[in-house]
């Protein structure tokens, strides 16, 4: 795996955005974008779910914690959900998630929810490129790296002050 | 509401009748106009074809001036009235172009900063026709009429620039604002399919035979539809259609004489304003006999 790491080291930094797309609209739109040979930034890594309603807020937080620089959620437009209103449920979670990540010090632009129907391959392209540009401008989030730094800081404090209550904690959200 | 007024070169020269009638009509309707101090050329015609940046720069300076004038009065939103179709279009185009082309905007803003001016998006470019029918309203205009244009058949000539490429207040293929205005003034609007056809622009100076033919067709069709008078919104259209009528008639061996006046002049006549105040004395083809 060293060759891979070396290669990534040589390249300029590129964001990595984890995308959760619903099977019926946005994933199909991604297929359409492919079939239409539209070109977009390679930073988006798609995970297919049946419905945007399946996106557990934990998935989003986990993606950030594991090193994603952005998270994109794609679902059907209101009224178009294959499961009637799963997207409404996601929308509510999204409002909550937005507040949460801001409190955690993550820029709000790193999380995005978009309604992209099966026919909107061009919108998918626009959204991905736009988000790629914005996250690129924000730079790396690198939560795993920060976790390590904080671990070291805490270790230092322990080393200097001896006992520290509840010093070590798992960083899994 | 106070409007800033950008006259442009034509209204101070060949189109003086336009300015006179515009000011008279606005005054009659209690609309205040304030001329922009130190305005310059709008950047139309040759400039736009030769060097877009310089043309945008010229237009932008006028917008910057309006912005400064506005700031001293601390107004919320400012409207510039540009009566000449070319000025109207160039100012509008500049605003729209700079809004989407940040690089050009930045370089022009840089230049304007040198002379303490800045562009402001809160400025709106308006055509007086738009202001009259949409801000003032047909109702209020109709109420001001003292001498209704009874039995006067009017062909409204919109020309190209106020509706193309932007449709700020009327439709591009068959505009109707002036036609409605004519009916409110008590006149009869002639359904005239050439209302947005080209007047030849500067062809009258460069390829006169073409210019003459274009204008002959406009006048001929207005005649065929029994129009008594043609109204325009643009100094160049008015100039082409009126000043060359002799030549047109001679070259086509057809009598197509017809008064061609500004829509503001027609409004002023219906309002009962004096001929002098409306610049009617400047017309080559007299208009007074259309009133019985």
């Amino acid at each position: 795996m060293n060759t891979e790491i070396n290669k990534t080291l040589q390249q300029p930094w590129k964001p990595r955005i984890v995308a959760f797309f619903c099977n019926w609209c946005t994933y199909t739109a991604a297929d359409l974008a492919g079939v239409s040979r539209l070109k977009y930034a390679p930073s988006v890594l798609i995970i297919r779910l049946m419905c945007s309603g399946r996106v557990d807020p934990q998935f989003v937080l986990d993606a950030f914690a594991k090193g994603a620089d952005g998270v994109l959620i794609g679902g059907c437009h209101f009224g178009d959900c294959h499961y009637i209103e799963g997207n409404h449920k996601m929308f509510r979670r999204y409002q909550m998630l937005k507040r949460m990540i801001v409190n955690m010090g993550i820029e709000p632009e790193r999380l995005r929810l978009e309604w992209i129907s099966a026919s909107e391959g061009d919108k998918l392209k626009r959204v991905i490129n736009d988000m790629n540009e914005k996250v690129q401008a924000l730079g790396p989030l690198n939560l795993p790296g920060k976790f390590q730094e904080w671990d070291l800081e805490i270790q230092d404090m322990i080393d200097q002050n001896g006992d520290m209550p509840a010093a070590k904690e798992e960083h899994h959200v | 509401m106070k409007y800033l007024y950008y006259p442009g070169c034509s209204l101070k020269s060949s189109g003086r009748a336009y300015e006179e009638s515009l000011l008279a009509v606005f005054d009659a309707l209690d609309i205040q106009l304030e001329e922009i101090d130190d305005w310059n050329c709008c950047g139309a015609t040759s400039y736009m074809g030769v060097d877009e940046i310089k043309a945008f720069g010229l237009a932008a300076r006028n917008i910057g001036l309006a912005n400064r004038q506005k700031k001293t009065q601390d107004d919320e939103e400012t409207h510039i009235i540009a009566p000449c179709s070319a000025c109207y279009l160039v100012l509008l185009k500049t605003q729209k172009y700079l809004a989407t082309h940040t690089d050009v905007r930045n370089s022009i803003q840089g230049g304007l900063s040198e002379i303490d001016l800045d562009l402001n998006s809160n400025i709106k470019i308006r055509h007086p026709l738009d202001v009259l029918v949409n801000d003032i309203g047909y109702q209020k205009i109709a109420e001001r009429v003292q001498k209704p244009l009874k039995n006067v058949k009017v062909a409204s000539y919109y020309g190209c620039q106020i509706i193309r490429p932007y449709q700020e207040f009327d439709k591009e293929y068959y505009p109707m604002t002036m036609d409605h205005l004519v009916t409110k003034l008590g006149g009869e609007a002639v359904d005239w399919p050439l209302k947005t056809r080209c007047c030849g622009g500067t062809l009258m100076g460069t390829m006169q035979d073409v210019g003459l033919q274009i204008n002959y067709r406009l006048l001929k069709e207005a005649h065929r539809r029994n129009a008594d008078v043609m109204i325009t919104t643009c100094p160049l259209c008015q100039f082409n259609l009126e000043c060359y009528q002799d030549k047109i008639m001679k070259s086509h061996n057809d009598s197509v004489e017809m008064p061609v006046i500004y829509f503001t002049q027609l409004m002023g006549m219906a309002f009962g304003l004096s001929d002098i105040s409306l610049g009617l004395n400047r017309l080559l083809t007299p208009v007074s006999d259309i009133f019985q």
Partner: protein
Amino acid sequence: MSSTSKNGSVRIGYYVCHCGHNIAANVDVAIVAKEIEKLPGVVITREYKYMCSDPGQELIQEDIKELNLNRIVVASCSPLLHEQTFRNALTHGGLNPYFLQMVNIRENVSWVHTDRELATQKAIDLSRAAVRRVAIHKALETRQVSINPDVLVVGGGISGINAALTLANAGKKVYLVERDPTIGGHMAQFDKTFPTLDCAACILTPKMSDVKNHPNITLWTYSEVVEFSGFVGSFKAKIKHKPRYIIEDLCVGCLDCIDACVYKNPKYRDEFNVGLSKRKPIYIPFPQATPQVVVVDPENCIQVKRGKCKMTCVDVCDRNAFDFTQQETFEEIQVGSVILTTGFQTFNPEKTPYYGYGKYDNVYTSLEVERIVNSAGPTGGEVLMRDGQKPKKVGIVHCVGSRDDRTNKWCSRVCCMYSLKLASLIKEHTGAEVYNFYIDMRTPGKGYEEFYDKVLKEKVHFIRGRVAEVTDWAAEKEEEGKLIIRVEDTLVGAVRRIPVDMVVLSVGIEPQTDAHDVRRLFNISCSTEGFFTERHPKLAPVETAAEGIFIAGCCQGPKDIPDSVAQSGAAASQALALIDKGVMEMEPNTAYVLEEACSGCKSCISLCPYTAITFVEERKKAEINEALCKGCGTCVAACPSSAIMQNLFEDDEIYSEIEGLLSIPQL
């Protein structure tokens, strides 16, 4: 997540597909295979030209046997295209089909990226995620649901008629619902059909009466589907019957009531003749309307509106078929599949004001001219204009509302051919000079080009160019009183003015205005413009994303009568295939409750749109009815105790995917 160590016996086979050059051109598949080989649990990696081909699938099957593989990852195209193919390969190889995970490196990678290195890196990232995920896959059983053999056909144009008859002839029970008072659709309005010029009514009306008389078809005209629910095999539909104020079973269609109406003269817009003639408040759309039952127009009938009419119509009806107390009625039916044949509308040329429609009397739409040339039409088949004159020169403007950025971008496919047909008919009826203004002549179809040739020989004029405007402005004396068509003749290279008496606008085909409502009702998808989308543009042209719902005719896209008939036949056969099988296999992606973790908070109950979750009072736990669950996973995501799981989309599977995607640190 130490998934692989938990499943110590996991043996993964990884296959990356070239897809000819489709993938291999933009992704270095050899590097991908090499990188994936290093991952724990991966026993073998292979690259192959076409994984979906038989040899490709056999490769997997042999490896399963020889290398004892128990998990398979295929990196190729979209799972929506070939997941089933590879699942079958697993089954044939003796493995549970759900031990498969696909990686979409074609639609999501090679087709959309240009930088080969980055695309290769992305393919590796996605593959790593799939390898991690597949390691913890579980064996699952496919669900089966039984199929109700009854079919609902929505829309009674030629497509709906053909689909209904095909199914009914196969012995299936069909409900045909049409919102107008008669079936027949647009085809009933046409005069003759290209390229054979056989009369539309002659070939359509026998089919219409077949529908009416078929013992297996329940025909409901003047009715609409207002509610729709359920899933493949057992749909429920609620049908609204609009009041005709006539008892359908009693009316024999003698039409005496129409003569007797208090309105001596027809006064209202005749929809069938596109407003070219008038009808009374009681009417029959056209003589062969099916069913042969009159209808009362509630907007204009004095009795319906004010209840104070002499009702001369009722007096003459010796069948006592009138019932002015009729109200809307509703009926619920259960069907196993649905065919949507809701048709199209023609482009409204008022949106192209430069063509003068609605402004000049002698500018017509092609649909209006269909009625004018029809011998049963408003002019008795004589080509007369609104002023009663016969045209001497006629201009036919093609592509009105088609192939145009300002209106509709698509080609409506039928206009060239019907314009040729109208040109030929007008010439035949009047001997007029006919000009066709076209952008390109599009005549693909059996006998179509030959028809074009025939019309050319009939000395119809063809001018190549999009018409700029239709005006009554006469530039020359000869043009006075005419309509002038201004056009750039692109073959001559000049702007021409062609004075004519009559202009025919060949209007394009558009989706129905309420296409989006229909789409929503049936939960299928449609393109931005409103044509319903098929599951696959080539390989599944009548299926939709919703199982058991099929589409045919112009609701799917512009097409002519032969294509509509072929497509509706195909839709009927697909429905028959479903019915004959009797059962439908469903993805086992249902949710289930881990009872020991369920706290009984009931958060999930209200979330489920299918009422699949119930609360079991005795145990104070939630329970999911697998038969009702559609597998959206909304409850799974919402359960505060993580007590709900979803087959195929387990939390752990998603987490391992996330981890797999991101496990290479980027600095």
